[in-house]
């Protein structure tokens, strides 16, 4: 079946079997391998993307259900001029190690900062609670999100 959706501001479509998840459609049909397959059942968060302003485990959403909606993936975080402040702070503070949880983590972080520009540490921990990381202990990730939040607030203000 033909599924059409907007991904990172671009209209994309693909002909996919009906049981295809949004994750599989992004990775295998649209060439966007940023979102990862870590468990395929919504436990690990490596597949997190933003659908119509909500962060979602794309392995749990059928591509058909995403039809016509507005998706943001990790590939859409930077614009052609500049890196997103989250990408800058994550890099500078060494927040990611193997990086596999990274795309999901950054999307959850962006979703948080878009709604809550100066989150407290407990609020950050809560926002990331669906994104598992085995390498970093989350410490530098939390620091980087605080850092990016401050940068975004002072830039936006």
């Amino acid at each position, binding site marked *: 079946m033909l599924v059409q959706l907007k991904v990172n501001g671009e209209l994309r479509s693909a002909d996919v079997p009906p049981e295809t998840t949004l994750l599989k459609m992004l990775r295998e049909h649209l060439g966007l391998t940023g979102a*990862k397959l870590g468990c395929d059942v919504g436990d690990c968060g490596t597949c997190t993307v933003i659908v119509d302003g909500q962060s979602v485990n794309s392995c749990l959403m059928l591509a058909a259900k995403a039809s016509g909606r507005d998706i943001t*993936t990790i590939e859409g975080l930077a614009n*052609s001029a*500049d890196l997103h402040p989250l*990408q800058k702070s994550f890099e500078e503070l060494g927040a*990611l190690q*193997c990086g596999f949880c*990274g795309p999901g983590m950054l999307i959850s972080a962006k979703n948080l900062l878009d709604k809550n520009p100066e989150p407290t540490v407990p609020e950050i921990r809560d926002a990331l609670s669906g994104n598992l990381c085995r*390498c970093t202990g989350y410490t530098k990730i939390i620091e980087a999100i605080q850092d990016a939040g401050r940068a975004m607030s002072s830039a936006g203000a």
Partner: protein
Amino acid sequence: MATTVKDVKKGAKNLTTDKDLTAPAVKPLTLPKDNPVIYPLTLPESEARRQTPAVGQRASRPDGRLHGLGQTKYIDDLTFPHMIFAKVLRSEHAHARIISIDTSEAEAMPGVLATLTGKEIPVNSFGPTLQDQPVLADSVVRHRGDGVAAVAAVTEQIAADALEKIKVEYEVLPAVFDSLEALKDEIKVHPPHSNIYTSKVIKKGDVEKALAASDHVFHRQFRTQMVEHVPLEPHSSVALWDGNGRVTIYTSLGRITLGREDVARTLGMAQSKIRLVGTIVGGNFGGKNEITNEPILALLSKKTGRPVKCTFTRGDEFISSTIRHPFIMDYTSGVNKEGKILARKIRLVLDGGAYCSWTGTTIGKGSILAPGPYNIDNLLVEAYAVYTNKTTTGAMRGFGAPQVCFAYESQMDDIAEKLGMDPLEIRLRNAFSEGSSSPTSQVLQSVAVRESLIQASERFGWKEWTQ
């Protein structure tokens, strides 16, 4: 129409007099708004990366930039033209003889291109110390994670469906799950061999005499559990051949030199005909240090003439990839009334799972580290690893150190409590210094345990802390 010399000269003349090209290129580019770029046009420079000297700099990682952009390619992100997908069928029993494997119904499914069983693998065994593990079990399965057959199909879904059509006839055998039971050797996992497949002894001084002379003797048994590495990236590989009979395997394996040797051995091929390539491993922690599917995918690729990819499911990661050894640890320590440890006697029983894997290293390190970073003149460590019909235990961050540290540090606090001493005090009284003799009588250099104890206590505020 062939270009004549005249035409070329004419062309050249135009180039050199073309006004736009002789002018300096300062005209700003205006890119259309929807111009797709793969990275932003302005990228931050890292100061730390450009400093000399380089050691000690908080230099950012180049892969950190790519992680943030979502551009890091892990093995599962790779695709190749005409790539197909493989899945592996795992054992239904913890211990059983394989009577027959019938793949005909699976092969008949539309979209299934090939199957593979253990009998087709030229040398069906591997392992870093003992080659006791089959690539695909062909006669006996020893734990539920053992692979028994593999399928390659045009989509992952068809390959998964085809697994259900493979008929395996088993003769269930009695199984042993408890490591202390396994020590009795009544049910053997690898007959005729004993279940005790490796052991270690470290002996120094006279431990019984010293225990008898101690003012206090402490004894306790400690146990640790089965845990998994849980790398966020599941194991993944892609195998493909070229027209010259060379196979390239892209793999999440952390040890490609060893991997190539193992693939060469199991497939009976020259190493020069094999190429192993890694990108970045999405978390290893010890679980991706030996081959898993690589020879299987190489053979399936050869059979089908197409690149074959296989990525473990999260379930496969738990049941089929290696886990940490559960330890049963008996610690007996003799101390004098000043708190000096005179003797320590340790027995370790390692649950060695169905296959050896990295047990040799784990039992070695575990035994050496078991007494702790303490000056103890009279020592006996006896360690045994036994086979059980459970998930293969392998290398996991620490090779036995986290387990024995739990035991020896718990006992230190027991000793401190009984003698009315501060936990910091008892440790400083016994800890290694520069030049101390290790449990194996090695003279230690660059020792920093006392410094770490004092520094940590100061940072934490150990003495001032109140409940």
